[in-house]
């Protein structure tokens, strides 16, 4: 970093990615693909797709290899995804608080254990839905946001609002 002001505008690891040290760096994949000519044909479309995906998910103005329009769109996508991530984090914390207060003691030990398991499954649901939405929307961005929105509606922590809050 020559200029500390620029430091605030960069994501950690940007430089490594620009230098090609990142996990999805182009030269790395080419090396792997050139080991055998037969796999080269298979690897090239993956490579192109991978680069596009990278631009959508992690957009950095300096590294954006696409057009300016797609760069702006991916920035918006990144911000919206970040907002959803915050919502999911809050919901997960609310479910965690609900789970930690362990509201009901059921006499039947198996029933009690299953109920407690359910509480913790609900805590895990937030991160799981978020990850699954990103996976489901890998190729189409709108699918990701539809999934995130629908998941957020389902994950609203009603017990936290009505009882544990």
């Amino acid at each position, binding site marked *: 970093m020559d200029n500390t002001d620029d430091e605030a505008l960069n994501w950690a690891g940007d430089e490594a990615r620009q230098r090609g040290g990142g996990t999805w760096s182009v030269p790395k994949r080419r090396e792997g693909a050139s080991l055998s000519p037969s796999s080269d044909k298979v690897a090239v479309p993956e490579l192109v797709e991978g680069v596009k995906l990278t631009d959508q998910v992690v957009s950095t103005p300096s590294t954006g290899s696409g057009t300016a329009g797609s760069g702006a769109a991916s920035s918006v996508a990144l911000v919206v995804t970040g907002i959803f991530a915050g919502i999911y984090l809050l919901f997960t914390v609310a*479910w965690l608080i*609900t789970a930690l207060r362990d*509201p*009901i003691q059921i006499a039947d030990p198996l*029933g009690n254990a*299953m109920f407690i*398991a*359910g*509480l913790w*499954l*609900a805590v*895990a*649901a937030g991160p*799981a*839905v978020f990850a*699954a939405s990103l996976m489901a929307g890998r190729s189409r961005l709108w699918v990701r946001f539809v999934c995130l929105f629908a998941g957020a509606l*389902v*994950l*609203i*922590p*009603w*017990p936290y*609002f*009505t*009882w*544990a809050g």
Partner: protein
Amino acid sequence: MIKSIIAGSFGLFFAWNVWAGIGNFLGIQNQRLQLGLDLTVLGWFVILLDVFAPILLFVAAILVGRKLSRWAFAGVLLLALLLVAVINLDLVLGVPVSAMFATGAAS
């Protein structure tokens, strides 16, 4: 074959939720009759959804995951199970009892 084992293993947990939902349904009916009260529309919706949500989500997960790989199939079923847990807790803990019984004046 392996996928049916996966489906069966997850199915046990879904079945437990259905069973617990039936228990809640009967418990609420018992309370309702002892109190001499009817349930609100929300109350009926809650105790019926508590029984049928696991069934619907299990079927949906099977349909979605049917053509996927084993791991993805298991992942979809796991996701559905997590959602069942969320919905079940929403219904069991998130709905005030006073909103389920049509208590009339004595709310």
